[in-house]
């Protein structure tokens, strides 16, 4: 019997710790505390946690923008500071830090040149990405004149210019309208389909829930829970049946049947409402059909063609990159088990989850499984992301001056 190929590890953190110190070398903050996790190839990995939980710090260490204080951290089997690995990484920070004096097209050109892309490839990818994020009309406007949502869009475009094998997104939907949010998720799913690996950090829980294969939940710089979305969120105590609208009489008969067969009662019957996201998208679509003028981003196109293409040379290059690793990689600590142990030792998982989810009265989900799961199907329900987006601060007119 042939044993299954173990999943390839893209990022590995063992005992990862980051302590910020002040001028007198006194500990100012322990942002990340003894964290173990692995990110496997071809998965969307979520970093979840409230503000200050250490998500961005972990990302910055992966990118080499911060140095770890202790522990081991490798990206493609190499130290994060190694410039060679960055060729395969795309990064969208929590805010898009772009040159205000460059136009959208010049920005993409610039980053394309940093990746050594030739002129034709740069132009083609820039065109496709601008079309994808709906900024073709404003491609020649300086970014300093863009709204926050537009800068997020161009930020996403620059993160994809090199067709990265490993995409790191820090709060990718912050500042985006529901259309942009939907589009980002579509891009992520498309990239995963092509075998890319994605690290997604967010405190918008719906974003993570919709697209992530596995996730870790951080609080105070420590992992409190990790596992697949299915395992963490499974509710094995209830059954939901969707049917066309039923009469009260039919419902009564069903309840009688359930009571007779299972000895249980129906807890709640409700007529579903139209989802807010759908309503929003319908309104925008109608306006678009009526050709209402807008000075901002227009409805984006489909995912850029080069991002939809089948995997090519990148895979082989990464293989070669990882094969070059001289030092034999130590066996990773079984992250899930360690995480669970830690959670058991320090704080009950259900309490932390309740704290994170804000559902004090509900039961905590079950613990995570040890193996990375197969990607979930494309989600159908994304209504919470819409609400999150609508509730987030809208700052279309925000302008920051140097």
């Amino acid at each position: 019997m042939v044993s299954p190929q173990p999943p390839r590890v893209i990022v590995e953190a063992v005992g990862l710790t980051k302590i910020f110190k002040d001028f007198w070398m006194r500990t100012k903050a322990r942002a990340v505390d003894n964290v173990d996790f692995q990110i496997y190839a071809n998965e969307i990995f979520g970093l979840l946690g409230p503000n200050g939980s250490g998500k961005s710090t972990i990302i910055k260490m992966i990118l080499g923008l911060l140095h770890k204080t202790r522990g081991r951290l490798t990206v493609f089997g190499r130290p994060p500071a190694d410039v060679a690995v960055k060729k395969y990484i795309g990064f969208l920070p929590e805010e898009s830090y772009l040159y205000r004096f460059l136009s959208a097209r010049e920005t993409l050109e610039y980053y394309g040149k940093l990746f050594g892309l030739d002129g034709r490839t740069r132009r083609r990818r820039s065109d496709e990405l601008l079309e994808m994020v709906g900024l073709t009309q404003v491609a020649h406007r300086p970014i300093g004149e863009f709204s926050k949502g537009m800068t997020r869009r161009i930020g996403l475009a620059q993160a994809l210019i090199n067709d990265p094998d490993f995409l790191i997104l820090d709060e990718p939907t912050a500042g985006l309208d529901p259309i942009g949010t939907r589009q980002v998720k579509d891009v992520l799913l498309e990239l995963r389909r092509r075998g890319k690996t994605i690290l997604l950090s967010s405190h918008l829980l719906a974003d993570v829930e919709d697209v992530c294969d596995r996730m870790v939940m951080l609080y105070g710089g420590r992992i409190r829970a990790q596992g697949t979305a299915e395992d963490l969120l499974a509710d094995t105590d209830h059954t939901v049946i969707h049917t066309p609208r039923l009469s009260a009489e039919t419902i009564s008969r069903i309840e009688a049947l359930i009571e007779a067969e299972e000895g249980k009662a129906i807890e709640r019957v409700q007529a579903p409402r139209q989802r807010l996201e759908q309503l929003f998208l319908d309104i925008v679509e109608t306006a678009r059909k009526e050709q209402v003028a807008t000075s901002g981003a227009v409805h984006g196109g489909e995912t850029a063609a080069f991002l939809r293409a089948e995997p090519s040379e990148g895979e082989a290059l990464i293989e070669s990159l990882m094969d070059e690793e001289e030092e034999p990689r130590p066996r990773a600590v079984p992250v899930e088990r360690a995480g669970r142990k830690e959670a058991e030792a320090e704080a009950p998982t259900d309490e932390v989850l309740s704290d994170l989810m804000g559902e004090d009265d509900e039961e905590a989900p079950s613990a995570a499984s040890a193996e990375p799961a197969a990607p979930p199907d494309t989600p159908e329900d994304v209504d919470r992301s819409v609400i999150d987006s609508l509730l987030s601060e809208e700052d279309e007119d925000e302008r920051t001056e140097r």
Partner: protein
Amino acid sequence: MSTLRELYRRLDLLQRTLPFRVAVSVLALALCGVVFGSLITTSDSLHAQRSALVEALTGQNLNERDDHAVTLSESGTVVLDGRTYREPRLADRPDLIFDDSGEIALPQRVAETLLRDQYPDWAPRWLLEQPGTVWMLAAVATMWLQLIVWMSITIPFLATVLGTAAAVGLAALTGSEQAMWAFGGIGLLTFTFVLLIRAMLILYHRPNQILAVAHTVLKEASRTMIPLVFIVLILIILPLLPIGLDPESPLRFRIQTFISRSLGFTFYLAASMTLFLSCATVAFEIRDRQIWQLMTKPVNRFSYLLGKWLGVVTVNLIILVIAAVSSFTFIQYLREQPVAATMAGQEDAQQVRDAVLTARVGTSPSYDTLDETQLRARVDELIERTPELATMEEVPLLQRRELRRRIELAYAASQRTVPPRGGAREYVFEGLSEARELQSTLTLRYRFHIMRDDEHKTFDALFVFNRDPNLAVSRSYVPTVTHTLSIPANLIQEDGTLSVTVVNLFEPPPDARTAGGLNFEADDFELLYKVGSFEANFFRAVFVDWVKLSFLAMLGICCATFLNFPVACLTSFTIFIAGTIGPFLADSLQEYYPPAMEAMDWGNVALVIQWAFQTVIRFIAQGIVFLLQSFGEYRPTQSLIEGRLIEWSAVAGGLIKVGLVWSGLAMIVGYLVIRRRQLAIYSGHG
């Protein structure tokens, strides 16, 4: 405003399209064809007629009744190839046309005079007289216009042309010719800047990380406020500088003033721009976190710094090229300006040629020095004559050194002192063989002190060359003012020496408190002679300025890797200023000594504090001088003003020392800092 910006954006997009480029390119070609076609045709035709006339008139003799000579003398006409050339005034002055033998003396001049009516009014005569220049101008203009079209700067070009034309038109309405030239110059320089920036952007448009970073710095320089303010100032003020020149002052002073103002002003403004831009481009990038996105790309931090430096250095190059070309052009214009038809005017013209627009080296006379035995004897003698030292069992070493230094200085000063009442001292200049070979006129530059240096009085001195009383020149001089004396090269001896004996003719009154000796500083009495051309010297001066700016660029970048923008600016400006005044500081330090420790009264607290303060100050100043003196010693503008040669060896030395070693050190420091620096600071947001 936003409408205008939107309009510009649309036009900008339009000018980048292929159909637009092709159409405008063809239009430009047609325009050049029409304008230069007419010019070339007319110029060629005139040239052919001139040649034919010269050929026909050469050898024509009135005494021999040659046809053209006869018609010329009778009616001032020449008929050639069926065309009649007429200038009746020629017939009135046969004495000017024919020589004693009756032959036409200057056929070229006569031909020019006969052709005068043939020149059209719509083109400048000087241009039509030179068909080669017309062709060259046509080629340059055509190429220039094509570059403009294909580099997609047609709209900025048209905008600049229209803006300049409007400004010049307004100036014309007010009747101010100077303002017209100034506005025209501003327009021309502005557009040249746009053209050069675009050219460099195209040059750097490669998928190379260093070039990509430099490319973005160029855009930053031309689009953000801080560098633009300085660049605009340079582009505006340069064309206005000639307005400030006093037309009544001697030409050499006007030229020197212009060189000083144009190059000096450009350097200091460019230096300020360089420091601000280099600090801003890194410090703001770290502050505003664009560097996060940059450093997560496969960019080596060394390449990042190199790219930033290359960008700033390129902006400097563009500014210096613009300033140099415009200044040089105006200097050429100035040198052609007429001088007064007096003796002073002729001397002025000679000074322009031999002392300003030239490249000279200076040599000082050789002075006697005291050998070790003589020095020791004089120190002992001084100790014996000083009661407080004579009573000491043994004079401390430091004090002996101080005495020795004072004796050396006094002996050197005595070498440069000439007693009054006909007292004389001979100075021998050596190593003048090169000047003798080149037969270049020597200039003796001197600045004397006498009595109390009353600048309202003049004194007399006699200069005797090679001890020959027949080769003596008497000159009046004003104390503390620099004077010059031209000396023919044939006075240099075969062995390359020239002896100059200075005779002090001053007769001090009997009641004078001072002795009336003439004296001078070591570098205020020298012989200068030409060894090169002003043009090459000018190029070297600009190059040295560029090297200095390159160091400043790296200095600013280095400071910004670990300091925020204001502190980085403050630090780099402090270093720049300290470097600039380094040589003056070095001079001052020769006179600034805290009291010797042996001579200190350690019980007096006030004196101890003063001593400590002076020691610290001297220590800091010595450090600055040691590190930065060389930066200030390279003063190319001053050399140009004085018509001194900037030697290639000095240029190479500056390039190695300032351009490579200092810049390299600053870069290594910056790299070490940024390599270890955690670019993502703790935000407090997880």
